[in-house]
């Protein structure tokens, strides 16, 4: 179901909308042939992931033909394509699952379940695919652990008790370094070469205010961004100066839901929130006395829940709000 491309072209000359029958949350964009995976958000058992095709030249966003989709138990908490292979998709929910996108169907490749006993599983809140070492995927779970999988072998490389409370997001910095945020309000960096120790680089000022999302600047690994629960601030951190944020971007009128660094510029970051706005910020080294203002903004029709700025299409930002998914030209 696609919003009429003509209408959307008229309203916003360079935004492309896909309207789904159900609310959307998880989003992922692959490299050419530019597939977009959208995950439903229905609070029932039966959820789905659909694959769309994006044509940046023709400016169209349509369901893949022939239709590609798969069922997922409960909403997928995250979707992500392999850093270079557009046929490999990963989803997180109860387990980390890998899917093979073929011409006419999607085949489940593997279900990565680390539960030793099947009395319980540890559902995943998020995961990140290591761009330097694509056989590594790091997952974060509500059981306070982070697990690093070697997906080529289908085994766990390591599992660390990362935090005191549920871990909500995880992001790779280099091949062996990742960071995670948790309900305990801390951002911690882990190095696989030294699993005994982690470094806290930030803690939320009100103790135990959960940090909900984390993004690591892949262009300049010194910088990370995180958002707090019920907060309209985007906190920018410099890993060289722990505990003190280098900037707090405070221009959203409501709480922030998602953040994404620009894939090809080290100074830009985009954030989106309940105020229906997506803001692009440019970070100076020196802030003015009144704080940093965003560079540009976009207003969507309702609260923006998801934001993806993929390296595959650096000129486009993907947002999801209610049951729509839009690609915005930067």
């Amino acid at each position, binding site marked *: 179901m696609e919003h009429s491309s003509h209408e959307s072209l008229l309203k916003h*000359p360079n935004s492309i909308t896909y309207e789904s029958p159900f609310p959307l949350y998880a989003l992922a964009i692959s490299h050419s042939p530019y597939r977009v995976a959208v995950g439903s958000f229905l*609070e029932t058992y039966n959820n789905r992931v659909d694959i769309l095709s994006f044509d940046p030249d023709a400016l169209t966003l349509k369901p893949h033909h022939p239709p590609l989709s798969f069922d997922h138990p409960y909403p997928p908490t995250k979707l992500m394509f392999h850093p270079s292979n557009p046929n490999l998709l990963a989803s997180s929910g109860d387990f980390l699952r890998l899917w093979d996108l073929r011409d006419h169907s999607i085949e489940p490749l593997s279900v990565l379940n680390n539960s030793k006993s099947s*009395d319980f*599983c540890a559902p995943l809140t998020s995961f990140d695919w290591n761009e330097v070492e694509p056989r590594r995927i790091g997952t974060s779970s*509500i059981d306070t652990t982070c697990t690093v999988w070697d997906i080529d072998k289908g085994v766990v490389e390591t599992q660390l008790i990362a935090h005191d409370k549920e871990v909500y997001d995880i992001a790779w910095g280099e091949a062996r370094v990742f960071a995670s945020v948790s309900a305990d309000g801390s951002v911690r960096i882990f190095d696989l070469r030294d699993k005994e120790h982690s470094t806290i680089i930030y803690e939320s000022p009100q103790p135990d205010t959960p940090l909900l999302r984390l993004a690591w600047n892949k262009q300049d690994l010194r910088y990370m961004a995180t958002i707090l629960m019920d907060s309209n601030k985007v906190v920018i951190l410099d890993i060289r100066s722990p505990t003190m944020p280098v900037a707090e971007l405070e221009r959203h009128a409501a*709480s922030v839901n998602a953040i994404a660094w620009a894939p*090809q510029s080290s100074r830009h970051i985009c954030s989106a929130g309940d105020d229906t706005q997506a803001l692009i910020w440019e*970070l*100076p080294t020196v802030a003015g006395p009144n704080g940093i203002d965003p560079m540009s903004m976009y207003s969507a029709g309702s*609260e923006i829940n998801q934001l993806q700025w993929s390296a595959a299409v650096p000129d486009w930002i993907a947002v999801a709000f209610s049951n729509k998914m839009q690609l915005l030209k930067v």
Partner: protein
Amino acid sequence: MASGFQTEERVPENMKKKLALAVRSIQWSYAIFWSISARQPGVLEWGDGFYNGDIKTRKTLQAVELNADQLGLQRSEQLRDLYESLSAGEASPQSRRPSVALTPEDLSDTEWYYLVCMSFVFNIGQGLPGRTLANGEPIWLCNAHLADSKVFSRSLLAKTLVCFPFLGGVVELGVTDLVLEDPGLIQHIRTSFLEIPYPASSSKKSLGAGITRNANTPTCALIDQDILVPHVGCEELDIVSLDNSSNGFEANPAAEASFMVDGMNGGASQVQSWQFMDDELSNCLHQSMNSSDCISQTFVEPGKAVSASKAVVVNDHCLQDLQKKNHTKLNLLDLRSDDLHYQCVLSSLLKSSHQLILGPCFRNYHHESSFVMWNSGGVAHFQNPGGKTPQKLLKKVLFTVPRMHVDVFPESPEDNGFKDGVWRPEADEISMNHALAERKRREKLNERFFILRSMVPSISKDDKVSILDDAIGYLKELERRVEVLQSCRESTEVEAGTIRKPQDTSERTSDNYGPNKINKSKKPLVNKRKACAFDETEPEMNYIVSKEGSNDNVTVSITHKDVLIEMRCPSKEGMLLEIMDTVSNLQLDCHSVQSSTVEGILSLTIKSKFKGSVVASAGIIKQALQRFARMF
């Protein structure tokens, strides 16, 4: 006009005049004296300077006509004043600028360059002046604008630059033309103008005259042949245009610095302050300038020697639409053609990844973008929109969705954990809670029915009514059996006579009858009637065993579709059959069974596979099997 000579004690008297003399004589664009900073040891900063280049707007404040020399001095002082006021203005953004003779719009490109130089600071050994001082030797730099920024960072305007140490500082002379190296020139300058004690008694008026006519300063005669007829002291300042000087000295690339020109002409010129992190470059004070229309303040701590990085700040005027475009890494915007040169100039200067541009008034020139220029008008303050839950969907994804998976497993230890979880439902989420609770209730009911079905043998249909009916029938059957057993036991008790209380029985017989029990219990599958005919110790044994029933083990481990069941239970006739029955009711296909009976305890190891897609959890299987240990 007071000028801020902070380092006056380090700047020889009349330095400005000497510099004026020197630079005018050779018709270069400017002369600067860098002196060791009083505030910061080991750092060269602006001592004094004389500007001899292009002037855009001449301002005469006094009625008195000054001669050319005086104008030159005055101009230099005015430039200094302007610098002072701007840096003062930057330090306290709200204060009004002290009134100065010049405003930024009055300045030509080269004047701007000169003014910007005032903000520079060099560590000893860094930058051209720093290296000059460190080496103690003059340095002549040609084609400075093409030089690596490590060598010379201010190459925007200068084409030729000369630095030589002098009186503990460094004298820098620059010109916008290309002049080939000539050590003789340096020597001349040094001796002729700078080291000769200047007649302090001379008035300003005679200064000019003195320069031209004073025989003590053989200016005209000693200047190199290459230099054109010097207009020393006599020239009109506004024709000291460097176009006519074919000196191989630095040239003000006035024409090339289009960015400056544009900036100057534009009414609303924006300030751009850049910072580059380059370890080669020296520390610098920053400077922010107020434009005529908007005061955009940028604030950098002056002279702060950051250990890891040394920043050099270059302030230049620029059109607002140029602010972002030179960021070579950003492909966001289309470049306008007249920006290209600017970009080239900049990119040759600026180091790559650490370049920053503060663009508070950035204009989005990319018309195709979905994003529009940000304005603060619409955004008020952070507010919770009408009592709705903030980050509602995000919270659901992180808090609720994972629990959906977990609640399917009734015996999950996670359940207990979550009761203490962080997320507390808010008042306005009660409706969501109801739906959740309702779903959970239904799921729990379904699970219980499933378990019941597995516990009750011979269940015909799967619907709930049938399950309940069969369960009722089974319970009645069980009650009957229990009665039978109890009557058997009573009859044996009566026979025994002595034994009344089960407790006593167990205490007395627990140890003594151990071996006997073993013997007797080797016939587990004996006919039921024989169970009653067992001797008096049997019931006690049963009691003992049933009390220990809670210790009996049922372990279930599931790997993919394989289920391994290990259990121990008191062995009874028909027990094995009933266990197998239960297992198959749980949709498990047994392919291997090992059993042994020791001391009346049946040990069982069953390997099985799930039959179809319906998968029972380990908890359910365990629960279904544990009744064998408990009952009977």
